[in-house]
């Protein structure tokens, strides 16, 4: 893997950007530096063009903007809170830590921002059916929710193995009126669910919109998904200025495909004093090969429509990723993150399953908040960042340092996994038997 450009090494480039007055915000695509583009079958190009055109017109339409704002406020429950986590922060070098509470949104994560926006675009295009991929089921549940609200038919592709492990999320989607199709091809995971959704899209593109769940894929998806999540960063920036009176020293988020991260990062990309960190799933440890640390250890390649960092072997075959967190268990990453890594604006680091689960428990016990395991990667990263900031400033200066963490989702869905990890279940309980099978409670 020696030929990969080292992520985050090119500090000079980003300085030039920020000092030269070139904004990193609102990057329109299709390219983010050497990344992005459209590596897609010709059959789908017309649909991507139609989506791009519809999106550009919607952005310029005050009626559309008002529709999104209304749904965000009166359906999702935005703005989400910014909560200072004082007891948690004692374990992070004594810096001040603020949590952006995307876990409080309707459906329990940031995912709702994107699905509402895309479902509205689908309606504008006259499409009557949406399809989506899902790993653990979060994006599937969010898509089914938006489809129910807006009266669209919804089909969700989900790896057969994931369907079995997340049986209750399958039931949630079906309660919401969606049809869940188990995918038995390839490795039967999220990437194969995306492949199957793309095959459906090619065959049904006339009446169907592919409601992609992350800021990846072919243009215009990376810029479009980011657009609907930019609200996270805009709110967080205004809230921290109001509550702390200044910008944070650092912003932290977890990265799978990278949609929650690009949403909060976007608010701070042009603030040179704010260091930005993305935390990838280190799984059992990056040295074990069982991880999903795409930027840390991947190499540029093309998958699912975009050029980006990618976990692949010497033949260019995609390698299966591993993480305790289903939402981060993807061997690719959004192209804008690859660009931000190369120019050094964002530092990407791996967090192991163990580190994430310790941070998960710590937030439960110190703040009374059960975080998603995905978001726990950002929390574990924030502990490291806080300790580093404290070391730089000395103990006295630590309390002046501020870190904002995107708490992208709540952990109710992860209780079974956590109970098993911490060995909390009575051996004779029904839950323990289910937990051994990896089921979602």
């Amino acid at each position, binding site marked *: 893997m020696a030929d990969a450009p080292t992520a985050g090494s090119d500090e000079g480039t980003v300085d030039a950007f920020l000092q030269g007055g070139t904004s990193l915000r609102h990057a329109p695509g299709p390219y983010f530096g050497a990344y992005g*583009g*459209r*590596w*897609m*079958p*010709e*059959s*789908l*190009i*017309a*649909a991507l*063009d139609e989506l791009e055109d519809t999106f550009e017109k919607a952005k310029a339409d005050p009626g559309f903007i008002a529709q999104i704002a209304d749904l965000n406020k009166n359906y999702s429950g935005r703005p989400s809170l910014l909560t200072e986590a004082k007891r948690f922060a004692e374990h992070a070098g004594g810096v001040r830590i603020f949590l952006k509470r995307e876990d409080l949104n309707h459906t329990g994560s940031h995912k709702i921002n994107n699905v509402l926006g895309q479902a509205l675009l689908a309606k504008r295009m006259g499409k009557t059916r949406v399809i989506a991929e899902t790993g653990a089921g979060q994006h599937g549940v969010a898509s089914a929710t938006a489809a129910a609200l807006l009266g669209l038919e919804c089909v969700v592709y989900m790896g057969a193995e994931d369907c079995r492990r997340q049986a209750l999320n399958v039931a949630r989607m079906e309660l919401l009126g969606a049809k869940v199709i188990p995918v038995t*091809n*390839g490795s039967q995971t999220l*990437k*194969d669910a995306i*492949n199957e959704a*793309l*095959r459906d899209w*090619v*065959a*049904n*593109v*006339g009446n169907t919109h592919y409601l992609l769940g992350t800021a990846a894929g072919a243009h215009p998806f990376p810029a479009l998904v980011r657009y609907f999540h930019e609200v996270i960063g805009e709110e967080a920036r205004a809230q921290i200025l109001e509550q702390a009176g200044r910008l944070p020293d650092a912003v932290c988020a977890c990265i799978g495909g990278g949609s929650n991260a690009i949403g909060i990062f976007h608010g701070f990309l042009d603030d040179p004093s704010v260091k930005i960190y993305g935390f990838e799933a280190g799984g059992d440890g990056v040295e074990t090969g069982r991880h999903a640390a795409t930027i840390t250890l991947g*190499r*540029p*390649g*093309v*998958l*699912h429509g975009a050029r980006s960092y*990618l976990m*692949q072997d*010497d*033949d*260019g*075959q*995609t390698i299966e990723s591993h993480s305790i967190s289903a939402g981060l268990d993807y061997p690719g990453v959004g192209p804008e993150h690859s660009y931000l890594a190369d120019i050094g604006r964002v530092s990407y680091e791996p967090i192991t399953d163990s580190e994430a689960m310790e941070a998960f428990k710590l937030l439960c016990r110190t703040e009374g908040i059960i975080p998603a395991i995905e978001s726990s990667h950002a929390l574990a990263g924030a502990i490291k960042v806080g300790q580093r900031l404290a070391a730089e400033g000395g103990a006295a200066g630590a309390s002046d340092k501020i870190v904002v963490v995107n708490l992208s989702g709540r952990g109710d869905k992860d209780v079974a996994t956590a109970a098993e990890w911490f060995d909390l279940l009575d051996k004779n309980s029904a839950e323990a038997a289910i937990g051994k099978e990896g089921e979602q409670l």
Partner: protein
Amino acid sequence: MTTAQTTGKSATSKSAIAIDKARAEGRAALIGYLPAGYPSAEETIAAGIALARNGADLIEIGIPYSDPVMDGPVIQAATTEALAKGFSVRQVFDVVAGITSQTDAAVLVMTYWNPVVRMGVDEFSRRLAEAGGAGLITPDLIPDEAVEWMDASEKYGLDRVFLVAPSSTPERMRRTVDASRGFVYAVSIMGVTGARSSVSSAAQDVVAAAKAAGAERVCVGLGVSTAEQVAEIAAYADGVIVGSALVAAVRDGGVDAVAKLTKDLSTGLTRK
């Protein structure tokens, strides 16, 4: 943009020569697809030779790939098995050389783009040319992203077979035809590979649109599995591409079944 198809370079295009030879005989060309390494590299070579000796003018060798978004169940199952048995991309050059050294068929490689990126576009092209290959069919590479491939294919004299679809706008049709070399691959329907009971009437419209955009040779693929369907397409296209049906033949009856099906399919080529 200058079109390679119309500037005379087609004279050195192996695909164009094979299609033109069929045309001179008053028939359409038959193009057969086989996945490399299924069930083994040796058997792919034997099946490729059987294709050529029983009526195929061009042969398409597919590189098994982990994420084949344009393929239906039959080809997916075959390529997944080839990968599970340890197929490596460099073996495709042995397969191509094994067929080109024994037959006169033009041998193209069909590949998703990432394996080419991984090896390096220039290196891949050099090795394909050395193996006697005619060029590449690229299901997930559109001309918009093909700068490196345009350069490498010119350098090594390889054919660039891009796809056009029922959804392609006239502007995209022109762009794709202009960028192509050898022939243009017309996708018969909106969908993935796999045998279908009838070939969509959209196919004829796609061929007409590609011809109107300046294409000299247009071949039709997706869903073709019988001699009757071959005959239907041969009436308006320069070549007929058969994939999943041949893969099923390999699966169910090996090289002999490929020979038999090819012979049968070729009876549909002559225009009535």
